[in-house]
Protein backbone atom coordinates (compact mmCIF):
# COMPACT_ATOMS: atom_id res chain seq x y z
CA UNK A 1 0.00 0.00 0.00
CA UNK A 2 1.34 3.38 -0.96
CA UNK A 3 0.95 6.25 1.48
CA UNK A 4 1.72 8.99 -1.01
CA UNK A 5 1.22 9.16 -4.80
CA UNK A 6 4.37 8.29 -6.69
CA UNK A 7 4.38 11.55 -8.60
CA UNK A 8 4.90 14.62 -6.41
CA UNK A 9 2.33 17.41 -6.75
CA UNK A 10 3.50 20.40 -8.79
CA UNK A 11 5.63 22.92 -6.95
CA UNK A 12 8.60 22.63 -4.58
CA UNK A 13 8.06 18.91 -4.07
CA UNK A 14 9.30 18.35 -7.64
CA UNK A 15 13.10 18.22 -7.90
CA UNK A 16 13.03 20.40 -11.03
CA UNK A 17 11.59 23.28 -8.99
CA UNK A 18 15.04 23.80 -7.42
CA UNK A 19 17.52 25.09 -9.96
CA UNK A 20 20.53 26.46 -8.09
CA UNK A 21 23.68 25.02 -9.71
CA UNK A 22 25.62 25.53 -6.46
CA UNK A 23 23.56 23.31 -4.19
CA UNK A 24 24.97 19.87 -3.69
CA UNK A 25 26.74 17.55 -1.33
CA UNK A 26 30.00 19.48 -1.38
CA UNK A 27 28.58 22.94 -0.62
CA UNK A 28 26.46 21.71 2.28
CA UNK A 29 29.36 19.63 3.64
CA UNK A 30 31.71 22.60 3.44
CA UNK A 31 29.26 25.00 5.10
CA UNK A 32 28.67 22.38 7.81
CA UNK A 33 32.40 21.94 8.34
CA UNK A 34 32.89 25.67 8.83
CA UNK A 35 29.78 26.13 10.96
CA UNK A 36 30.41 23.18 13.28
CA UNK A 37 33.43 24.57 15.23
CA UNK A 38 31.64 27.92 15.66
CA UNK A 39 28.55 26.19 17.04
CA UNK A 40 30.79 24.05 19.23
CA UNK A 41 32.37 27.21 20.68
CA UNK A 42 28.97 28.82 21.24
CA UNK A 43 27.61 25.68 22.90
CA UNK A 44 30.62 25.03 25.10
CA UNK A 45 30.87 28.63 26.33
CA UNK A 46 27.10 28.65 26.83
CA UNK A 47 27.12 25.63 29.12
CA UNK A 48 30.20 27.04 30.91
CA UNK A 49 28.50 30.38 31.44
CA UNK A 50 25.54 28.57 32.92
CA UNK A 51 27.92 26.83 35.35
CA UNK A 52 29.46 30.21 36.20
CA UNK A 53 26.36 31.04 38.24
CA UNK A 54 27.33 28.25 40.68
CA UNK A 55 23.81 26.79 40.43
CA UNK A 56 24.56 24.33 43.27
CA UNK A 57 24.69 27.14 45.87
CA UNK A 58 21.75 28.72 47.71
CA UNK A 59 19.04 30.00 45.40
CA UNK A 60 21.42 30.49 42.48
CA UNK A 61 19.82 27.84 40.27
CA UNK A 62 17.58 29.32 37.58
CA UNK A 63 16.39 26.12 35.93
CA UNK A 64 14.38 23.62 37.99
CA UNK A 65 16.32 21.03 40.00
CA UNK A 66 17.68 18.21 37.85
CA UNK A 67 18.45 20.49 34.94
CA UNK A 68 21.97 21.55 35.89
CA UNK A 69 24.33 18.91 34.53
CA UNK A 70 27.47 20.98 34.78
CA UNK A 71 27.98 21.95 38.43
CA UNK A 72 31.47 22.75 39.68
CA UNK A 73 33.13 25.46 41.73
CA UNK A 74 33.50 28.33 39.23
CA UNK A 75 37.07 29.70 39.60
CA UNK A 76 38.01 33.32 40.35
CA UNK A 77 41.11 33.30 38.13
CA UNK A 78 41.76 34.61 35.62
CA UNK A 79 39.52 37.54 36.53
CA UNK A 80 38.45 37.90 32.87
CA UNK A 81 37.30 34.27 32.66
CA UNK A 82 33.58 35.02 32.51
CA UNK A 83 34.10 38.07 30.30
CA UNK A 84 35.90 35.71 27.90
CA UNK A 85 33.47 32.77 27.98
CA UNK A 86 30.40 34.98 27.70
CA UNK A 87 31.99 37.34 25.20
CA UNK A 88 32.87 34.38 22.96
CA UNK A 89 29.39 32.93 23.48
CA UNK A 90 27.53 36.05 22.38
CA UNK A 91 29.89 37.27 19.66
CA UNK A 92 30.36 33.81 18.10
CA UNK A 93 26.59 33.32 18.27
CA UNK A 94 26.03 36.57 16.39
CA UNK A 95 28.67 35.98 13.71
CA UNK A 96 27.48 32.40 13.15
CA UNK A 97 24.14 33.66 11.81
CA UNK A 98 25.17 34.13 8.13
CA UNK A 99 26.73 30.66 8.13
CA UNK A 100 23.66 29.16 9.74
CA UNK A 101 21.36 30.80 7.20
CA UNK A 102 23.58 29.73 4.29
CA UNK A 103 23.69 26.17 5.59
CA UNK A 104 19.90 26.07 5.85
CA UNK A 105 19.53 27.60 2.37
CA UNK A 106 21.76 24.86 0.96
CA UNK A 107 19.46 22.09 2.21
CA UNK A 108 16.03 23.71 1.84
CA UNK A 109 14.92 21.45 -1.08
CA UNK A 110 15.09 18.50 1.33
CA UNK A 111 12.21 19.99 3.34
CA UNK A 112 9.98 19.36 0.33
CA UNK A 113 11.48 15.98 -0.63
CA UNK A 114 9.02 13.47 -2.04
CA UNK A 115 7.61 11.23 -0.68
CA UNK A 116 7.46 13.09 2.65
CA UNK A 117 7.94 9.82 4.51
CA UNK A 118 9.68 6.84 2.92
CA UNK A 119 9.96 4.45 5.86
CA UNK A 120 10.10 4.52 9.70
CA UNK A 121 13.78 5.51 9.72
CA UNK A 122 13.09 8.43 7.38
CA UNK A 123 10.14 9.51 9.55
CA UNK A 124 12.06 9.68 12.82
CA UNK A 125 15.05 11.27 11.12
CA UNK A 126 12.78 14.03 9.81
CA UNK A 127 11.22 14.46 13.25
CA UNK A 128 14.69 14.85 14.78
CA UNK A 129 15.42 17.55 12.19
CA UNK A 130 12.72 19.70 13.82
CA UNK A 131 15.01 19.71 16.86
CA UNK A 132 18.00 20.56 14.68
CA UNK A 133 16.52 23.30 12.48
CA UNK A 134 13.85 24.63 14.85
CA UNK A 135 15.99 24.14 17.95
CA UNK A 136 19.00 25.76 16.27
CA UNK A 137 17.10 28.79 15.02
CA UNK A 138 15.38 29.04 18.41
CA UNK A 139 18.54 29.15 20.53
CA UNK A 140 20.30 31.56 18.18
CA UNK A 141 17.27 33.83 17.90
CA UNK A 142 16.44 33.89 21.62
CA UNK A 143 20.10 34.61 22.46
CA UNK A 144 20.36 37.42 19.91
CA UNK A 145 17.06 38.94 21.11
CA UNK A 146 18.24 38.75 24.73
CA UNK A 147 21.37 40.70 23.80
CA UNK A 148 18.99 43.44 22.60
CA UNK A 149 16.69 43.28 25.66
CA UNK A 150 13.86 42.22 23.36
CA UNK A 151 11.49 39.69 24.92
CA UNK A 152 8.50 39.02 22.65
CA UNK A 153 7.75 35.70 24.40
CA UNK A 154 5.93 34.80 27.61
CA UNK A 155 8.50 32.24 28.83
CA UNK A 156 11.62 32.64 30.97
CA UNK A 157 14.54 33.33 28.63
CA UNK A 158 17.20 31.41 30.55
CA UNK A 159 15.07 28.28 30.96
CA UNK A 160 13.96 28.24 27.32
CA UNK A 161 17.41 29.09 25.90
CA UNK A 162 19.09 26.48 28.10
CA UNK A 163 16.74 23.62 27.32
CA UNK A 164 16.54 24.64 23.68
CA UNK A 165 20.33 24.23 23.68
CA UNK A 166 19.96 20.70 25.05
CA UNK A 167 17.64 19.71 22.22
CA UNK A 168 19.77 21.48 19.60
CA UNK A 169 23.04 19.99 20.89
CA UNK A 170 21.62 16.47 21.02
CA UNK A 171 20.17 16.73 17.52
CA UNK A 172 23.43 18.22 16.20
CA UNK A 173 25.51 15.33 17.57
CA UNK A 174 23.06 12.93 15.97
CA UNK A 175 23.03 14.85 12.69
CA UNK A 176 26.83 14.92 12.43
CA UNK A 177 26.87 11.18 13.13
CA UNK A 178 24.28 10.47 10.45
CA UNK A 179 25.84 12.78 7.85
CA UNK A 180 29.54 12.05 8.39
CA UNK A 181 29.62 9.39 5.64
CA UNK A 182 27.93 11.85 3.24
CA UNK A 183 30.51 14.53 4.06
CA UNK A 184 33.40 12.13 3.58
CA UNK A 185 31.94 11.11 0.26
CA UNK A 186 31.59 14.73 -0.84
CA UNK A 187 35.20 15.52 0.01
CA UNK A 188 36.43 12.27 -1.57
CA UNK A 189 34.54 12.91 -4.79
CA UNK A 190 35.25 16.59 -5.25
CA UNK A 191 38.17 17.30 -2.94
CA UNK A 192 37.90 19.19 0.33
CA UNK A 193 38.93 22.57 -1.10
CA UNK A 194 39.12 21.99 -4.86
CA UNK A 195 35.67 23.50 -5.67
CA UNK A 196 36.91 26.75 -4.10
CA UNK A 197 39.35 27.15 -6.97
CA UNK A 198 36.58 27.26 -9.58
CA UNK A 199 35.91 30.68 -11.06
CA UNK A 200 32.40 31.50 -12.24
CA UNK A 201 33.19 30.20 -15.73
CA UNK A 202 34.48 26.93 -14.24
CA UNK A 203 31.55 26.47 -11.86
CA UNK A 204 29.44 23.47 -12.73
CA UNK A 205 26.50 21.84 -10.98
CA UNK A 206 26.92 18.53 -9.18
CA UNK A 207 25.26 15.65 -11.07
CA UNK A 208 21.63 15.14 -10.11
CA UNK A 209 20.74 12.32 -7.75
CA UNK A 210 17.25 11.52 -6.49
CA UNK A 211 16.85 12.60 -2.83
CA UNK A 212 19.99 14.69 -3.12
CA UNK A 213 20.56 18.43 -3.06
CA UNK A 214 21.59 19.04 -6.66
CA UNK A 215 19.11 20.05 -9.35
CA UNK A 216 18.03 17.87 -12.31
CA UNK A 217 17.82 21.05 -14.37
CA UNK A 218 20.42 23.48 -13.03
CA UNK A 219 20.34 27.11 -14.15
CA UNK A 220 23.49 28.72 -15.48
CA UNK A 221 25.54 29.86 -12.48
CA UNK A 222 25.61 33.57 -11.68
CA UNK A 223 28.08 33.21 -8.82
CA UNK A 224 30.86 30.75 -8.03
CA UNK A 225 30.87 28.65 -4.87
CA UNK A 226 33.73 30.70 -3.49
CA UNK A 227 31.75 33.81 -4.39
CA UNK A 228 28.82 32.57 -2.31
CA UNK A 229 31.16 31.76 0.58
CA UNK A 230 32.68 35.20 0.14
CA UNK A 231 29.26 36.80 0.61
CA UNK A 232 28.77 34.76 3.78
CA UNK A 233 32.25 35.78 4.95
CA UNK A 234 31.51 39.45 4.28
CA UNK A 235 28.32 39.27 6.34
CA UNK A 236 30.15 37.47 9.17
CA UNK A 237 32.98 40.01 9.14
CA UNK A 238 30.57 42.95 9.24
CA UNK A 239 28.70 41.42 12.18
CA UNK A 240 32.02 40.79 13.96
CA UNK A 241 33.32 44.34 13.46
CA UNK A 242 30.04 45.88 14.64
CA UNK A 243 29.68 43.76 17.78
CA UNK A 244 33.04 42.61 19.14
CA UNK A 245 33.80 46.02 20.67
CA UNK A 246 31.15 45.59 23.35
CA UNK A 247 33.14 42.65 24.72
CA UNK A 248 36.78 43.57 24.21
CA UNK A 249 36.46 47.33 24.62
CA UNK A 250 39.19 49.72 23.51
CA UNK A 251 38.78 51.67 20.28
CA UNK A 252 36.55 48.92 18.85
CA UNK A 253 33.85 49.77 21.41
CA UNK A 254 32.88 52.74 19.25
CA UNK A 255 32.10 50.31 16.42
CA UNK A 256 29.60 48.23 18.44
CA UNK A 257 26.91 50.36 16.87
CA UNK A 258 23.96 48.00 17.29
CA UNK A 259 24.60 46.72 20.83
CA UNK A 260 22.35 48.58 23.27
CA UNK A 261 25.19 49.10 25.76
CA UNK A 262 27.95 48.83 23.19
CA UNK A 263 28.88 52.44 22.94
CA UNK A 264 26.81 54.00 25.68
CA UNK A 265 27.37 55.06 29.26
CA UNK A 266 25.42 57.44 31.45
CA UNK A 267 27.05 60.86 31.71
CA UNK A 268 30.78 61.19 32.23
CA UNK A 269 33.22 60.97 35.10
CA UNK A 270 34.40 58.00 37.18
CA UNK A 271 30.99 56.29 37.05
CA UNK A 272 30.51 56.63 33.30
CA UNK A 273 30.42 53.00 32.20
CA UNK A 274 27.50 50.79 31.17
CA UNK A 275 24.75 49.94 33.66
CA UNK A 276 22.86 46.65 33.65
CA UNK A 277 19.91 47.86 35.71
CA UNK A 278 19.37 51.40 36.90
CA UNK A 279 18.56 52.28 40.52
CA UNK A 280 15.26 53.74 39.39
CA UNK A 281 14.20 50.46 37.76
CA UNK A 282 15.30 48.49 40.82
CA UNK A 283 13.27 51.00 42.91
CA UNK A 284 16.31 51.81 45.05
CA UNK A 285 15.91 55.52 45.80
CA UNK A 286 17.81 58.05 47.89
CA UNK A 287 15.21 57.45 50.63
CA UNK A 288 15.86 53.69 50.56
CA UNK A 289 19.63 54.11 51.01
CA UNK A 290 19.41 56.97 53.57
CA UNK A 291 20.96 55.96 56.88
CA UNK A 292 22.19 52.70 55.37
CA UNK A 293 24.27 50.29 57.40
CA UNK A 294 25.46 46.88 56.27
CA UNK A 295 23.76 44.01 58.02
CA UNK A 296 26.52 41.47 58.65
CA UNK A 297 25.11 38.07 59.60
CA UNK A 298 27.00 35.04 60.89
CA UNK A 299 28.18 33.69 64.26
CA UNK A 300 28.80 37.33 65.37
CA UNK A 301 26.06 39.38 63.71
CA UNK A 302 26.43 43.17 63.66
CA UNK A 303 25.68 46.23 61.59
CA UNK A 304 28.41 48.41 60.10
CA UNK A 305 27.95 51.93 58.80
CA UNK A 306 29.49 53.08 55.53
CA UNK A 307 31.97 55.30 57.41
CA UNK A 308 33.06 52.32 59.50
CA UNK A 309 33.55 50.28 56.33
CA UNK A 310 35.59 53.11 54.77
CA UNK A 311 37.78 53.15 57.89
CA UNK A 312 38.63 49.45 57.46
CA UNK A 313 41.63 48.13 55.51
CA UNK A 314 40.59 48.84 51.90
CA UNK A 315 41.81 47.09 48.77
CA UNK A 316 41.77 48.34 45.17
CA UNK A 317 41.63 46.09 42.12
CA UNK A 318 41.05 46.41 38.38
CA UNK A 319 38.25 43.95 37.69
CA UNK A 320 35.80 43.40 34.85
CA UNK A 321 32.05 43.33 35.04
CA UNK A 322 30.78 41.03 32.32
CA UNK A 323 27.13 40.70 31.43
CA UNK A 324 25.30 37.69 30.10
CA UNK A 325 24.44 39.87 27.09
CA UNK A 326 28.10 39.77 26.13
CA UNK A 327 29.28 43.28 27.02
CA UNK A 328 31.96 43.84 29.60
CA UNK A 329 33.85 46.73 31.12
CA UNK A 330 36.92 46.77 33.37
CA UNK A 331 37.07 49.36 36.16
CA UNK A 332 39.13 50.13 39.25
CA UNK A 333 37.16 49.15 42.35
CA UNK A 334 37.92 49.98 46.00
CA UNK A 335 36.29 48.32 48.97
CA UNK A 336 36.51 45.92 51.89
CA UNK A 337 37.70 42.36 51.20
CA UNK A 338 34.91 39.81 51.63
CA UNK A 339 37.26 37.59 53.63
CA UNK A 340 37.83 40.44 56.15
CA UNK A 341 34.05 40.79 56.51
CA UNK A 342 33.78 37.00 56.96
CA UNK A 343 36.31 37.17 59.80
CA UNK A 344 34.45 40.13 61.30
CA UNK A 345 31.22 38.11 61.21
CA UNK A 346 32.98 35.33 63.11
CA UNK A 347 33.15 32.99 60.11
CA UNK A 348 36.74 33.20 58.81
CA UNK A 349 36.32 29.78 57.18
CA UNK A 350 32.90 30.58 55.69
CA UNK A 351 31.77 28.04 53.10
CA UNK A 352 29.36 30.47 51.45
CA UNK A 353 27.86 33.92 51.76
CA UNK A 354 24.31 34.87 50.96
CA UNK A 355 24.15 38.41 49.54
CA UNK A 356 20.84 40.30 49.61
CA UNK A 357 20.11 43.58 47.88
CA UNK A 358 18.03 46.57 48.94
CA UNK A 359 16.15 45.90 45.72
CA UNK A 360 12.86 44.44 46.89
CA UNK A 361 11.62 42.76 43.74
CA UNK A 362 12.90 41.42 40.45
CA UNK A 363 15.52 38.95 39.30
CA UNK A 364 19.00 38.71 40.78
CA UNK A 365 18.26 40.63 43.99
CA UNK A 366 20.26 37.98 45.82
CA UNK A 367 23.15 35.63 45.12
CA UNK A 368 25.19 33.04 46.98
CA UNK A 369 28.98 33.09 46.63
CA UNK A 370 31.33 30.14 47.21
CA UNK A 371 34.15 29.66 49.75
CA UNK A 372 36.76 30.26 47.02
CA UNK A 373 35.05 33.45 45.95
CA UNK A 374 35.00 34.74 49.56
CA UNK A 375 38.64 33.76 50.09
CA UNK A 376 39.97 35.49 46.96
CA UNK A 377 41.98 38.57 47.92
CA UNK A 378 40.31 40.55 45.10
CA UNK A 379 36.71 39.82 46.12
CA UNK A 380 35.31 43.07 47.45
CA UNK A 381 32.34 44.74 48.96
CA UNK A 382 33.10 47.76 46.78
CA UNK A 383 32.33 51.26 48.05
CA UNK A 384 34.14 53.24 45.38
CA UNK A 385 34.98 53.00 41.71
CA UNK A 386 37.79 54.89 39.98
CA UNK A 387 38.46 56.74 43.32
CA UNK A 388 34.91 58.13 43.52
CA UNK A 389 31.88 56.96 45.48
CA UNK A 390 29.74 54.49 43.60
CA UNK A 391 26.86 56.16 41.81
CA UNK A 392 23.33 55.05 42.63
CA UNK A 393 23.15 53.22 39.29
CA UNK A 394 26.35 51.32 40.05
CA UNK A 395 25.15 50.15 43.46
CA UNK A 396 25.67 52.89 46.07
CA UNK A 397 26.13 52.48 49.02
CA UNK A 398 27.98 49.20 48.39
CA UNK A 399 28.14 46.42 45.83
CA UNK A 400 29.84 43.08 45.35
CA UNK A 401 32.77 42.72 42.94
CA UNK A 402 34.22 39.24 42.58
CA UNK A 403 36.71 38.25 39.87
CA UNK A 404 35.27 36.14 37.02
CA UNK A 405 31.75 36.30 38.48
CA UNK A 406 28.80 36.81 36.08
CA UNK A 407 27.73 40.48 36.16
CA UNK A 408 24.32 40.02 37.75
CA UNK A 409 25.85 38.11 40.68
CA UNK A 410 27.90 41.17 41.57
CA UNK A 411 24.92 42.28 43.66
CA UNK A 412 24.31 46.04 43.81
CA UNK A 413 22.83 48.05 46.74
CA UNK A 414 23.93 45.34 49.19
CA UNK A 415 21.66 45.20 52.25
CA UNK A 416 23.07 42.17 54.04
CA UNK A 417 25.79 39.54 53.91
CA UNK A 418 25.14 36.26 55.66
CA UNK A 419 28.28 34.16 56.09
CA UNK A 420 27.66 30.46 56.65
CA UNK A 421 30.15 27.79 57.68
Amino acid at each position, binding site marked *: MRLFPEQPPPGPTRP*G*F*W*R*SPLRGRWLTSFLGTVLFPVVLLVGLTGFLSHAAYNPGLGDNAIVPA*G*GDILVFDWPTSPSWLYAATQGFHVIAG*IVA*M*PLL*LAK*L*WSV*VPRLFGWPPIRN*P*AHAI*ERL*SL*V*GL*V*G*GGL*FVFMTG*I*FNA*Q*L*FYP*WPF*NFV*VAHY*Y*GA*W*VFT*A*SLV*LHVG*VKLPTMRRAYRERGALAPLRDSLAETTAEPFEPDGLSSP*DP*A*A*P*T*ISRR*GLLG*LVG*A*ATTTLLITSVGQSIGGPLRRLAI*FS*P*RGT*GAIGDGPNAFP*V*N*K*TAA*TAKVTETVVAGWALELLGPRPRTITRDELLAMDLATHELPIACVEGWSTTQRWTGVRLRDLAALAGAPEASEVQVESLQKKGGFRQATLSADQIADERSLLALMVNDADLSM*DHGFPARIIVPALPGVHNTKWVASLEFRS
Partner: protein
Amino acid sequence: MIGRLRGAYGEGPLHLVGHLAFFAITAYVVVQLADAPSALTILLWIVGAALIHDLVLVPVYAAADRALRGALPRLRTPIVNHVRFVGVVSGTLLIVWFPVMFGKADGNIERNAGLTPDDYLIRWLAVTAGLAVLSTLAYAARALRAGRVGRVEERDDAVGPAADEDAPRA
Protein backbone atom coordinates in the same frame (compact mmCIF):
# COMPACT_ATOMS: atom_id res chain seq x y z
CA MET B 1 18.21 -10.03 12.14
CA ILE B 2 19.91 -6.81 11.12
CA GLY B 3 18.76 -7.44 7.58
CA ARG B 4 15.17 -7.73 8.75
CA LEU B 5 15.48 -4.50 10.76
CA ARG B 6 16.87 -2.76 7.71
CA GLY B 7 13.96 -4.07 5.66
CA ALA B 8 11.25 -2.99 8.11
CA TYR B 9 12.89 0.16 9.47
CA GLY B 10 14.87 1.40 6.51
CA GLU B 11 18.27 1.91 8.15
CA GLY B 12 20.75 0.01 10.33
CA PRO B 13 20.54 -0.47 14.11
CA LEU B 14 22.93 2.41 14.88
CA HIS B 15 20.54 4.84 13.19
CA LEU B 16 17.71 3.60 15.39
CA VAL B 17 19.75 3.69 18.62
CA GLY B 18 21.05 7.18 17.88
CA HIS B 19 17.58 8.55 17.23
CA LEU B 20 16.13 6.83 20.30
CA ALA B 21 18.88 8.48 22.40
CA PHE B 22 17.98 11.87 20.91
CA PHE B 23 14.27 11.39 21.64
CA ALA B 24 15.11 10.25 25.20
CA ILE B 25 16.98 13.53 25.80
CA THR B 26 14.14 15.51 24.26
CA ALA B 27 11.66 13.65 26.48
CA TYR B 28 13.76 14.53 29.56
CA VAL B 29 13.68 18.18 28.52
CA VAL B 30 9.91 18.03 28.09
CA VAL B 31 9.57 16.51 31.59
CA GLN B 32 11.86 19.22 33.02
CA LEU B 33 9.78 21.90 31.33
CA ALA B 34 6.44 20.33 32.21
CA ASP B 35 6.23 22.49 35.35
CA ALA B 36 7.09 25.66 33.48
CA PRO B 37 3.91 27.62 32.79
CA SER B 38 4.73 28.10 29.12
CA ALA B 39 6.22 24.75 28.08
CA LEU B 40 3.83 24.48 25.16
CA THR B 41 4.70 28.00 24.01
CA ILE B 42 8.40 27.08 23.94
CA LEU B 43 7.58 24.08 21.74
CA LEU B 44 5.47 26.26 19.45
CA TRP B 45 8.30 28.76 19.12
CA ILE B 46 10.78 26.01 18.21
CA VAL B 47 8.51 24.60 15.50
CA GLY B 48 7.47 28.11 14.46
CA ALA B 49 11.11 29.21 14.06
CA ALA B 50 11.70 26.42 11.54
CA LEU B 51 8.45 27.11 9.68
CA ILE B 52 8.96 30.87 9.48
CA HIS B 53 12.50 30.37 8.22
CA ASP B 54 11.66 27.73 5.63
CA LEU B 55 8.29 28.99 4.45
CA VAL B 56 8.66 32.76 4.80
CA LEU B 57 12.27 33.93 5.02
CA VAL B 58 13.76 31.65 2.36
CA PRO B 59 10.99 32.26 -0.24
CA VAL B 60 11.19 36.00 0.43
CA TYR B 61 14.91 36.30 -0.18
CA ALA B 62 14.83 33.82 -3.06
CA ALA B 63 12.09 35.92 -4.69
CA ALA B 64 14.07 39.10 -4.01
CA ASP B 65 17.11 37.56 -5.70
CA ARG B 66 15.00 36.46 -8.68
CA ALA B 67 13.46 39.92 -8.99
CA LEU B 68 16.93 41.47 -8.78
CA ARG B 69 18.27 39.29 -11.59
CA GLY B 70 15.27 40.13 -13.70
CA ALA B 71 15.52 43.85 -13.10
CA LEU B 72 19.23 44.33 -13.70
CA PRO B 73 20.39 45.40 -17.15
CA ARG B 74 22.58 42.91 -19.02
CA LEU B 75 26.01 44.47 -18.67
CA ARG B 76 29.27 43.34 -20.23
CA THR B 77 30.65 42.97 -16.71
CA PRO B 78 27.79 41.35 -14.72
CA ILE B 79 26.83 43.51 -11.74
CA VAL B 80 24.52 41.08 -9.97
CA ASN B 81 27.00 39.94 -7.31
CA HIS B 82 27.88 43.51 -6.44
CA VAL B 83 24.22 44.11 -5.62
CA ARG B 84 23.99 40.76 -3.82
CA PHE B 85 26.96 41.77 -1.65
CA VAL B 86 25.09 44.83 -0.37
CA GLY B 87 21.86 42.85 0.00
CA VAL B 88 23.41 39.92 1.86
CA VAL B 89 25.50 41.98 4.31
CA SER B 90 22.84 44.59 4.96
CA GLY B 91 20.13 41.90 5.10
CA THR B 92 21.98 39.86 7.74
CA LEU B 93 22.49 42.99 9.84
CA LEU B 94 18.74 43.52 9.59
CA ILE B 95 17.88 39.93 10.53
CA VAL B 96 20.18 40.03 13.56
CA TRP B 97 19.56 43.57 14.83
CA PHE B 98 15.99 44.37 13.72
CA PRO B 99 14.70 44.53 17.32
CA VAL B 100 16.86 47.55 18.21
CA MET B 101 16.51 49.06 14.73
CA PHE B 102 12.74 49.16 15.00
CA GLY B 103 12.72 50.23 18.63
CA LYS B 104 11.31 46.93 19.88
CA ALA B 105 13.36 47.20 23.08
CA ASP B 106 13.45 50.98 23.58
CA GLY B 107 11.58 50.76 26.89
CA ASN B 108 13.90 48.07 28.25
CA ILE B 109 17.00 49.95 27.12
CA GLU B 110 15.85 53.09 28.92
CA ARG B 111 14.71 51.28 32.04
CA ASN B 112 17.65 48.90 32.42
CA ALA B 113 20.65 50.60 30.87
CA GLY B 114 19.43 54.12 31.68
CA LEU B 115 20.30 55.10 28.11
CA THR B 116 18.33 56.89 25.46
CA PRO B 117 18.18 54.37 22.61
CA ASP B 118 20.39 55.37 19.69
CA ASP B 119 19.25 55.75 16.11
CA TYR B 120 20.06 52.18 15.21
CA LEU B 121 17.93 52.34 12.08
CA ILE B 122 19.86 55.37 10.80
CA ARG B 123 23.13 53.55 11.54
CA TRP B 124 21.96 50.55 9.55
CA LEU B 125 20.97 52.75 6.62
CA ALA B 126 24.35 54.48 6.84
CA VAL B 127 26.21 51.16 6.85
CA THR B 128 24.10 49.99 3.90
CA ALA B 129 24.86 53.18 1.99
CA GLY B 130 28.57 52.73 2.75
CA LEU B 131 28.47 49.15 1.49
CA ALA B 132 26.70 50.30 -1.68
CA VAL B 133 29.37 52.91 -2.33
CA LEU B 134 32.16 50.36 -1.75
CA SER B 135 30.50 47.83 -3.99
CA THR B 136 29.93 50.36 -6.77
CA LEU B 137 33.56 51.45 -6.65
CA ALA B 138 34.69 47.83 -6.76
CA TYR B 139 32.42 47.21 -9.75
CA ALA B 140 33.69 50.27 -11.61
CA ALA B 141 37.30 49.25 -10.98
CA ARG B 142 36.61 45.70 -12.20
CA ALA B 143 34.74 46.75 -15.32
CA LEU B 144 37.33 49.37 -16.28
CA ARG B 145 40.25 47.03 -15.68
CA ALA B 146 38.65 44.33 -17.82
CA GLY B 147 37.77 46.94 -20.43
CA ARG B 148 34.19 45.64 -20.52
CA VAL B 149 31.96 48.59 -19.87
CA GLY B 150 28.37 49.06 -20.97
CA ARG B 151 25.49 46.83 -21.99
CA VAL B 152 25.63 43.44 -23.68
CA GLU B 153 24.78 43.65 -27.39
CA GLU B 154 24.52 39.98 -28.33
CA ARG B 155 21.92 37.76 -26.75
CA ASP B 156 24.07 34.63 -26.34
CA ASP B 157 25.98 35.56 -23.22
CA ALA B 158 25.83 32.32 -21.22
CA VAL B 159 26.99 33.80 -17.95
CA GLY B 160 24.64 36.64 -17.33
CA PRO B 161 22.17 38.00 -14.89
CA ALA B 162 19.27 36.48 -16.80
CA ALA B 163 20.10 33.01 -15.46
CA ASP B 164 17.23 31.85 -13.39
CA GLU B 165 18.16 29.98 -10.23
CA ASP B 166 15.43 28.51 -8.13
CA ALA B 167 12.70 29.74 -10.42
CA PRO B 168 9.88 27.32 -11.14
CA ARG B 169 10.17 25.86 -14.60
CA ALA B 170 7.81 27.43 -17.05
